[in-house]
């Protein structure tokens, strides 16, 4: 009986394969230059530089991935037919990622962006086998001769939002819907609190963790529980607009995160802390086109100064003097005169983490594991050594 089954399946699959291959021969095999007909035929001069993006989420998340895709579109706009971009979305941060990256190389891409931390190991492996391709890894910390890490100073956006929050809160309780307790998010919570304290030393921050980057129903519940706990201004590090929408429904305030979310909660929206990947992607593309791309042991970390971070669409509900304060901070971040992470910084157990007047370096910032004074609770898993 087994033989029967094997035979039947074998014959059928062979037949099917033969039929399909027969048909398939009419199509070009996936050669590097054969893409969808939409691409213009190569101009008489150079072949366009093929750039590929790997996204962890869906392009429509209106948050993290959406911001990256906007960066990709900016590159297309800037360089026209000198480049040809493509993307794969919802690539899981797991074993599958390696295959996607290898496939991108096989398709002839020479510049590849991996837009989430979890792609680090797969990218390193693939980069070792494809030395002529340049790899850019977002939010990572490892590098190679053809791979470097980049990131955006989201904490600057969080700080500026905090300034607004501190001035707008009536209960002096702020709420943050946290995604995953990695240093970046802890840093953002801290910066948000510090920004608020700079205009209103009495504020407290409550944090609730969703343990995911993107889960609108959970984010809604988390936001609701923060509001129930007395917070009247909400901030988030998650990727959807659920938190803002919850605040809208409850008649409280919130911010947009990663991209401009004004339209999702017009009454609740105070401002959006956005990431603008355009400038960095354009610069990187230019470097590759000019042949001047160099790797870097330290991650390349752009902020307000380089145009990567901004606080936009500040609502008219924010009084003029508060708006001015934010603009001053922004200008100071732009020209480097304003430093957010300068001592004394005390954590919420009373221990001094940064002595007076000491400026934190990027390495220190990259490993933050404590909450500053004013934030309630303990960092999840923060004391695991």
């Amino acid at each position, binding site marked *: 009986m087994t033989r029967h089954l094997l035979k039947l399946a074998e014959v059928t699959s062979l037949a099917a394969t033969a039929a399909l291959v027969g048909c398939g021969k009419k199509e070009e095999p996936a050669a590097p230059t054969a893409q969808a007909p939409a691409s213009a035929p190569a101009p008489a001069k150079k072949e366009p530089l093929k750039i590929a993006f790997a996204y962890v989420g869906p392009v429509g998340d*209106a948050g993290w991935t959406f911001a990256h895709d906007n960066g990709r579109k900016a590159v297309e706009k800037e360089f026209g037919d000198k480049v040809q971009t493509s993307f794969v979305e919802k690539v899981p941060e797991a074993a599958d990622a390696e295959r996607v990256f290898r496939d991108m190389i096989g398709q002839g891409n020479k510049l590849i962006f991996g837009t989430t931390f979890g792609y680090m190991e797969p990218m390193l492996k693939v980069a070792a086998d494809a030395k002529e391709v340049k790899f850019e890894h977002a939010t990572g910390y490892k590098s190679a001769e053809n791979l470097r890490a980049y990131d955006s100073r989201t904490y600057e956006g969080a700080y500026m939002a905090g300034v607004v929050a501190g001035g707008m809160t009536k209960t002096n309780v702020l709420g943050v819907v946290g995604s995953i307790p990695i240093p970046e998010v802890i840093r953002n919570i801290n910066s948000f609190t510090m920004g608020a304290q700079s205009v209103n030393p009495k504020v407290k921050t409550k944090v609730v963790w969703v*343990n995911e980057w993107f889960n*609108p129903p959970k984010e809604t519940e*988390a936001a*609701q*529980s923060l509001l129930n706990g*007395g917070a009247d201004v909400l901030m988030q590090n998650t990727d959807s607009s659920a938190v803002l*929408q919850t605040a809208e429904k409850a008649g409280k305030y919130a911010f947009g995160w990663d991209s401009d979310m004004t339209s999702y909660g*017009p009454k609740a929206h105070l401002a959006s802390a956005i990431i603008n990947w355009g400038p960095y992607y354009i610069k990187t593309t230019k470097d590759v086109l000019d042949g001047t791309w160099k790797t870097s042991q330290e991650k390349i970390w752009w902020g307000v100064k380089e145009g990567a971070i901004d606080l936009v669409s500040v609502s008219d509900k924010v009084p003029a003097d508060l708006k001015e304060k934010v603009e001053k901070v922004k200008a100071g971040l732009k020209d480097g005169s304003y430093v957010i992470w300068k001592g004394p910084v005390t954590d919420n157990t009373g221990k001094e983490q940064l002595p007076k007047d000491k400026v934190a370096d990027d390495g220190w910032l990259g490993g933050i594991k404590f909450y500053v004074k004013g934030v309630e609770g303990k960092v999840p898993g923060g004391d695991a050594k």
Partner: protein
Amino acid sequence: MESFALLIAATLNAGTVLAIAGLGLLINERAGIVNLGAEGMMLVAAIAGFATAVHTGNDWLAFGAGAAAGALMAAAFGGLVIWLNTNQYATGLALSLFGAGFSAFAGIQYTQQKLGERPHFEIAGLTDIPFIGPALFRQHPMVYLTIALTVGLAWFLYRSRAGLVLRAVGESPESAHALGYPVRRIRLAAVMTGGALCGVAGAYVSVIYTPLWVEGMIAGKGWIALALTTFATWRPARVLLGAYLFGGVTMLQFHLQGEGVQIPSQFLTMLPYLATIVVLVLISRNATWIRVNMPASLGKPFFPGS
């Protein structure tokens, strides 16, 4: 105190989704059919409801669309399971898996859409009662409709002729058939009604609860609703209470985090699922009790003329 009142309000809201779906599944199971496709039906209904709300701006049409989507999927399921006698568990699973994929696919262009301003609800006068006001009376009408549904369903099952026939079909389809009742059509009606209710629940999630579409947004609520029916020993009032219990545990986990309780958040997130297991164990312990309460033909295929 204020925050506790708000916790109750949030619990009612969260529980409503589970309750509507749970009641729908109860109707199914009373007729003897287990529909494991609840999650898939809710997902497809969620995108159907959301899309309708985006295009028409009318929430109630959206609920209708969700109900229709759920009923349609349930009909496909019913056709296979009732007439072709396919295995109920496998078919239900297939429905769930298909629903997950299809909803994600259909929802692609809706991921960035938003709905118009979401209405506030208040019952004038009642909301001002201290504590009870904010706890109970600031809810969407669907919350109150759900309570009405529970009462109505209990009446239907235990006090109406039609309900009696339904239960008879669930206890012993052969006997009902012998008495001349169109067992298969009754089962199909039950399945489709159940599907419609799951659909309403799904649409509620995407239109009211979290007015967004994102794939997978039902996030296991369909499976919890299935657990609810067993846990409630197939009685409507208990389904409602159980739903509120689960809604409460879900909200509690965030509430505890916000209060600074030092339990790792992952353990708090586990709470609803562990609670389900514990309650299942407690309920099922007495095999006799289960046998007395469970519709006897649950999960078994029915062959007319056999």
